C-alpha cells in the first residue's frame, strides 16, 4: 500500500531539486526510456530511511561532478507502482531493489547500483563510486 503522499513529498522534492525528472506513470517512463539516447541516470526512489536516506544526498553530491549523465529521471517505488514496474522492465536482468540506480547509455544499462551497495555507506562514499562510474561510462573530465 502506498505511503501517505505527505510523507514522501519531501523525498520527491529532494530529487526534483537536484534536477531529476519525476516519472509517475508508465507512459511517462516509456516516453523517457523508450528509444533512449545519450546518457541517463534512473533513480528508483524509496521511503526507506536506512538506504534512501543516504542515496539521495549521494546523488546530489555526485551530480556536482564534472562528468554526469545528460538526463536524470526518477520513479518512486511503493508509491508510483505502475511507473516503477515499467521502469524495471527496461533493466529486467537486474533484480528489483529500492533504492537503486541504473546508469544507461543509448538504452543499455552500463552500471547498476543495488540497494545492498548503498546500505551502511556514507553519501560521500556512494557519491565517490558513482562519479567513478560517470567517468568510466560517460567520459573523463578534462
Amino acid at each position, binding site marked *: 500500500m502506498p505511503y501517505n503522499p505527505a510523507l514522501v513529498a519531501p523525498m520527491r522534492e529532494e530529487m526534483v531539486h537536484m534536477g531529476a525528472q519525476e516519472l509517475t506513470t508508465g507512459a511517462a517512463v516509456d516516453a523517457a526510456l523508450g528509444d533512449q539516447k545519450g546518457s541517463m541516470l534512473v533513480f528508483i526512489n524509496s521511503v526507506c530511511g*536506512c538506504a534512501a*536516506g*543516504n542515496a539521495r544526498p549521494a546523488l546530489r553530491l555526485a551530480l556536482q561532478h564534472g562528468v554526469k549523465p545528460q538526463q536524470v529521471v526518477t520513479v518512486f517505488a511503493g508509491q508510483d507502482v505502475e511507473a516503477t514496474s515499467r521502469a524495471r522492465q527496461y533493466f529486467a536482468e537486474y*533484480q528489483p531493489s529500492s533504492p537503486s540506480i541504473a546508469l544507461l547509455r543509448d538504452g543499455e544499462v552500463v552500471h547498476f547500483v543495488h540497494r*545492498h551497495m548503498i546500505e551502511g555507506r556514507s553519501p560521500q562514499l556512494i557519491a565517490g563510486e558513482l562519479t567513478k562510474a560517470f567517468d568510466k561510462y560517460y567520459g573523463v573530465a578534462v
Partner: protein
Amino acid sequence: MSHRLSGRPLHTDRHELHGVTVVLDTRGDATYVGRFDSQDEHGVHLFDVGVFDPATGTREAYLRRSVQFGIRVDRPELTVPTSDVARVIPLGQLEL
C-alpha cells in the same frame, strides 16, 4: 526540510542490521540472502529472501550473481531459528 530527512533512518529503535541485505549462513548447508528485519525469541526474521540451491552451482557463484544482479526472491519472508544461525554478514561487505 528535505535535507533533514535524508541521511536519517526513520526508525532508530531497531536491530543494527534492520533494513540491511545480509547473507545468513546456517550451521547446516543452507545459505540465505535477504533483508534483515529483526531478531527475537523465534529467530532471525528476513524479508525478500533468496535461497541458495546447491543444484545450481557453488555458494560463491550464487553470491557473486546476487552481488552483481541483485537477489532473486524465492521467499517473501523467512525466520531462521537463532540456534541454526552460523553467521550473518551484510552482502555489501562480503569479499568474494
